[in-house]
């Protein structure tokens, strides 16, 4: 009984957890949107087609996630590598210019970066992917450098003094301690990319922005709402997910 109640409490905590809730809402919206067709038909009686049916919302969501995931992952690998390079003695010279570029680049509005990618690379998912990757690089590089710089000098000295080599120091000490800051940069990048990927449907990438754009151009408010609700839910799910990861990355600070 006692063991049972702990499990129950654990289950309740899981069920009322906001990440779980957000994921449930997102899944319900993506899979259940067709069921809401009568609702949209009632709300917008003037529309011939009250439900976006050109693509399934599941396909759009997966394409959206693929675009965000691929660009963010590339940016994480490249951004961390660059951040690590400029915080080593051999790359220190490049640190200033890299930080300046990262700071300045982030003032460029993401939508404008996306638009500029088209004249340079043409329409489609490819320019979107490249624009999103470049844009995601900036906060990740910035936070990787800040995170690695934030590792206390005394910790580095004792790691050296105890006989850790450069690789051991990086992977056992520096990166774990910089992880929360790096993760915050990844979170910024992903949240921005979810939004920019939606706009990328204007440059020919198939994403959750498509129903919104089609709806806006065709004065179909139902399409707009369907796309917007799912994009918003997706962004919130990812944000809550990063919240959880952030808490995990600093578990040692508690207690």
């Amino acid at each position, binding site marked *: 009984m006692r063991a049972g109640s702990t499990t129950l409490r654990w289950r309740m905590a899981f069920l009322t957890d906001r990440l779980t809730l957000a994921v449930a809402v997102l899944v319900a919206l993506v899979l259940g949107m067709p069921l809401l067709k009568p609702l949209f038909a009632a709300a917008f009686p003037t529309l011939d087609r009250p439900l976006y049916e050109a693509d399934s919302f599941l396909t759009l969501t997966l394409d959206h996630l693929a675009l965000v995931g691929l660009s963010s992952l590339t940016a994480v690998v490249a951004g961390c590598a660059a951040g690590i390079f400029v915080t080593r003695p051999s790359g220190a010279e*490049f640190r200033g210019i890299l930080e300046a570029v990262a700071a300045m680049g982030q003032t460029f*509005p993401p939508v404008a970066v996306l638009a500029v990618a088209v004249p340079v690379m043409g329409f489609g998912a490819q320019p979107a992917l490249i624009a999103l990757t470049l844009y995601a690089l900036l906060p990740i590089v910035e936070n990787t450098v800040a995170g690695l710089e934030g590792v206390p000098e005394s910790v580095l000295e004792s790691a050296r003094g105890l006989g850790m080599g450069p690789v051991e120091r990086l992977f056992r000490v520096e990166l774990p301690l910089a992880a929360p800051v790096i993760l915050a940069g990844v979170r910024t990048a992903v949240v921005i990319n979810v939004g920019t990927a939606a706009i990328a449907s204007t440059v020919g990438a198939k994403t959750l922005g498509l129903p*919104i754009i089609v709806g806006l151009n065709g004065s179909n408010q139902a399409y707009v709402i369907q796309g917007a609700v799912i994009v918003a839910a997706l962004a919130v799910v990812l944000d809550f997910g990063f919240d959880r990861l952030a808490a995990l990355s600093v578990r040692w600070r508690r207690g």
Partner: protein
Amino acid sequence: MPHRPILHNRVALLLAAAIAAAALTLPFLGFAPNRLLSGRPVALWAALVGPLDWLVLLPGVVVLAVPFLRPGRAVSAAYVAAGVLLAVGLVWLAGAQAARLAANAAPAARTSFGAGFWVMEAAALLAAMDGVRRLGLAPAWRIAVGAAAAALIGLLLASGRLDQLSILREYANQRDVFAAAVARHAVLVAAALVPTLLIGVPLGVLAQRVPRVRRAVFPVLNVVQTVPSIALFGLLLAPLSALANALPGLGIAGVGPVPAVIALTFYSLLPIVRNTVEGLDGVPAAVREAARGMGMTKRQIFWKVEVPLALPVFLSGLRITLVQAVGLAAVAALIGAGGLGAIMFQGLFANALDLVLLGAVPVIVLAVAVDAALKLAVSLLGRRAA
């Protein structure tokens, strides 16, 4: 064993290599018979006609020489000047070549920037930035260098020497539309700023004082900030149209500038409230206590101690807000708010790439300018305080 390195600046070497590689392998310009066709590439050497053209490359040689010179202020200053002059010179050269190509072509022909131009231009500007950093200039002087480069390019624009470049040909066609779009863009940003400050600043002050308000406000604003702009515009569409139908006299609508301003305000609140709170949090308790100890009233402490000390952090929140709003206002064109985004999306939907640039490039310039202006304000304020 004093080790004397041969290379004093590997950044400059890398940039010089990028410039050289782009000059040799990538098209400097693209030349197309009309605005919808893609162009044939024009290499850099094809654009080097007169001796003055060759002079444009001289700063590039300076950048290449910098790594091998003993570092010092003079070398760094030359490095900065070379970066700026190369960036300006490349623009001039592109304009000059566009004019030459236009002289022998049909009126519909277009000359646009090629990948080589973009790489060289970026490398030249990075060289200037790297040099400015090495000079260790104060922020105000760094901004002055940027402003000087911008002014030189502005002069070229004003002189008409760039008029045959496709983006300016497009501008010539859209002159009135462009001016109206810039004005509308600025109005959108400014119009959102008013409610943002009226709500955000008092809310920030309150949140800083009352922990319960703080705990309630930030999760909400954080979620709003998380929702992508295009989705928030979409979500506001239905309730606002419903409101417009119910109360037709108020000038509210689901599309157009009003929902755009409302959505921009939602986004702008977070940085303003956050930085108001952080600024006030940053006032040292000892300073507050000393002020109280000297007999200042609560009102005096707020206006004479807390506000001046919190101002730099607040201004940096304002900077983030405005830069963000410039970009979001461009997205707002999708719901019919107008502005530079309208030109940009019109170009994207019509496959007119010059039009895309005519919308997107000014958005970037505007964002960078707003950023620089507010950074300048913060740095001048900091100097006054010091």
